[in-house]
């Protein structure tokens, strides 16, 4: 079986899912396809089942927050075709403050914990996920710590004076931030 090129994948996806690929770029020798959110599950299923590609290994998946972008939230998926040793990366964006993506569990069982992690840190919901709850943080945590609107520092800290650490001067008041 011939090793598929990135061009083959692009052509196949364009033929099968017209308009699903929004853009394509090369990052660190990695081809990144930005795709429409609605096509995510079907594209994953197609690449998994297709005899030519056989992308059957979900290497990793994670959430991303770009606070200044009009579409601030994104999910990133990295697929690996073990048969051909080809890797590709997908990104899909959401403009919503409370984004919901399709769960990839029907295709990749490995997506279960990865999606729970994205929920834990970013608050993303995954349609069809059977057990969407926190995985790494304490269960009674009441916010999503990797979202940029929340301070990374812990609020129960008492021995640090913000004036001594240059936070107040830049208008960074973490106690106030948390109340909002």
């Amino acid at each position, binding site marked *: 079986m011939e090793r598929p090129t990135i061009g083959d994948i692009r052509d196949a996806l364009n033929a099968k899912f017209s308009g699903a690929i929004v853009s394509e770029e090369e990052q660190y020798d990695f081809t990144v396809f930005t795709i429409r959110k609605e096509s995510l599950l079907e594209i994953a299923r197609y690449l998994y089942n297709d005899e030519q590609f056989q992308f059957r290994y979900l290497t990793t998946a994670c959430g991303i927050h770009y606070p200044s972008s009009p579409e601030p939230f994104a999910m990133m998926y990295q697929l690996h075709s073990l048969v051909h040793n080809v890797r590709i990366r997908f990104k899909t964006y959401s403009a919503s403050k409370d984004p919901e993506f399709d769960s990839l569990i029907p295709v990749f069982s490995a997506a279960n914990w990865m999606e729970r992690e994205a929920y834990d840190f970013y608050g993303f919901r995954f349609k069809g996920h059977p057990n969407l709850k926190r995985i*790494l*943080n*304490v269960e009674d*945590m009441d916010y999503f*710590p990797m979202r940029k609107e929340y301070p990374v520092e*812990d609020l129960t800290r008492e021995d640090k004076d913000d004036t001594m650490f240059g936070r107040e001067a830049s208008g960074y008041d973490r106690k106030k931030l948390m109340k909002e």
Partner: protein
Amino acid sequence: MTDTNKVTIEKAPAGFEGPGFFATSLDKVVGLARKNSLWPLPFATSCCGIEFMSTMASTYDFARFGAERLSFSPRQADLLMVMGTIAKKMGPVLRQVYEQMAEPRWVLSVGACASSGGIFDSYPVLQGIDKIIPVDVYVPGCPPRPEQIIEGVINIQQLVQNESLRRRNAPEYKALLASYGIE
């Protein structure tokens, strides 16, 4: 062959001595015995734990202080030594270990992380174990040298020796535990 001058022998507490008898208060005898036979429970989660390994080994020889026998069961331990960063998820575990220890029990917080969160001013890290359990002695340092850990234990020994036998039944002590929601 041993240089006996370097060995400190515990002095008997103040009391009345006569031919064939010695009388002193029970507090002092019990304090003396407890002080020199502490069973520490090491709760080592990171680099302070490595320093503790050195403290236990031959150069620093923690056994000199009567703490030869580490107890890995909380039910038999007298001294809980918390060494290292305690993540918030680890908090309930640490608290359960403390609750399983029998009275009288003491807690030594070793290093910046256990004492205050240290450099980990961050959402997953407990900002000092005294948020969940009462602490008797804090050892600063990141990580502290074995000498500092030993000094912390010597301070614990002072507390143990001078503790009144009634302290654990005192209303102040019960109020302290109640403020942590224990018992």
